[in-house]
């Protein structure tokens, strides 16, 4: 069950963000709980104009799910502004990172990430194939996909680490990384990989078009700490 604060914060955000595409919105910048480790991480949740109509196997649209993931990766196990005493999982703030969560448009996420001097830029999405087939159970058809800019060695490393930390937790078993542009896993050139100065990795955390996958993405308080783990692994535990 999701905790109250996650739901409350995300709900408020999504009420406004879901109404109009293109509206400017304030980003959220989080300071680490303790001493800053010198790194800045920009999390950029999905902003699809058709969120909720992308075959999601549950009540939340992809944008909502992605925002939950970003929030939990940043603040997870730190509910009601108190570090969760029952958890030894460490979110990004506990690991010493400054985190900025993009709440405006995709264009503003690129602009803000660059202007803020982000070291890492991580768009957060969930994947879709076909609609209306939520009861599927063949896990080999699904999994975590992390995409990197084709010429970025660091981007490839970040994508590899995120796949290695998040992938084993997601229910789909076809976890992979792929490059962009050119790899058939994406048919378009992704703006957030091409135009950001930070090392970037674009996460499709799991497919939301099967109920098992949707439920896993929805329960991000349980697994989103793994994004911090992947970030730490990429940066060599700064």
């Amino acid at each position: 069950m999701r905790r109250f604060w996650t739901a409350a914060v995300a709900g408020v955000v999504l009420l406004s963000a879901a109404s109009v595409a293109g509206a400017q919105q304030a980003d959220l910048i989080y300071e680490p709980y303790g001493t800053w480790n010198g790194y800045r991480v920009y999390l950029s949740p999905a902003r699809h104009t058709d969120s909720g109509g992308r075959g999601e196997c549950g009540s939340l649209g992809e944008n909502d799910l992605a925002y939950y993931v970003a929030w939990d990766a940043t603040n997870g196990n730190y509910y009601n502004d108190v570090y969760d005493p029952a958890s030894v999982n460490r979110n990004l703030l506990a690991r010493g990172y400054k985190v900025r969560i993009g709440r405006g448009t995709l264009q503003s996420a690129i602009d803000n990430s660059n202007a803020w001097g982000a070291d890492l830029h991580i768009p957060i999405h969930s994947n879709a194939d076909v609609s209306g087939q939520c009861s599927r159970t063949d896990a080999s058809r699904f999994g975590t996909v992390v995409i990197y800019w084709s010429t970025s060695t660091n981007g490839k490393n970040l994508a590899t680490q995120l796949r290695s930390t998040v992938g084993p937790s997601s229910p789909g078993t076809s976890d992979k990384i792929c490059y962009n542009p050119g790899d058939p896993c994406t048919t378009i050139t992704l703006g957030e990989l091409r135009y950001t100065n930070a090392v970037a990795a674009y996460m499709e955390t799991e497919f939301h078009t099967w109920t098992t996958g949707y439920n896993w993405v929805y329960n991000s308080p349980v697994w989103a700490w793994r994004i911090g783990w992947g970030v730490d692994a990429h940066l060599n535990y700064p």
Partner: protein
Amino acid sequence: MERNHPIRFVTLVLFALMISMSPGFAQPDKAQSSPLARYPGFGYNPKADEDQFEREEAAREDRIARCMEREGFTYWPMRSVALEGLESTRKAMEVLRDNPNDRYMLLLSEEGRLRYNRALYGIDNPDALEADRLRDPRDPRATGCAAEALRLIPGVFAAKSALTEELHAMRQAVLADQRVKAGEAQWSACMQKQGYSLESPRALRQQMDLQVAAALGKPESLKALGMEHRKALETSTGCIKQSSLDKVVASTRVDYERAFVKKHRKFLDDFLRTLEQEPLDER
């Protein structure tokens, strides 16, 4: 949830130890001798950098609002919200509850929104995924009020942002330097005496993540791990002090930063001049 639960206290201590044990967290003792400290945005004066960033963002947003007004639209300046400490969640909720730009756009026709997007972003759809439908931030001819404001006020982190890949490579090179390796070997020997077989503090934290992942779904194992990790981190902190590892890392870093500045001096000096000329106070 009790506010003074003893396990919470243990967790907070654990967290504080995790932060303090990282040899990379400390500013170098020789901070003043690093030539990189002269350039804003590289982490030597984080408070001053953040303050400047706030001023720049405010100035940019004011410019955008005036520009949009000239284009026939109303725009409410949007500034990022810094969240820290006990009030963060509540503050986030308050800030996000109200978005006048969102309400304004709702009143526009479809054609009006298109013109609004072109005026603000210089493109039709600022939420398009495809690169060729977005504005290239490096394009000096890019149109739109936001692009114009960014060109005039590139900001305190502009140089750091442009050199992100090189900076990353330098930081990794510091960690791989023989002096740091030697310091880690001393730390390792210290840890060995306490019964730990680890190469570096980083290896300890990596091991902790692996152990947590393996213990998920087993509450008793996690609880025991929490205690074990706390003990290991306390030991590590002692060994970092004994081996002077943090000082070794810091002084090594200064050497690498000296070479970094030498390589990028012209770019960094140009950046300083650009910063001095930012029109932050024009109203």
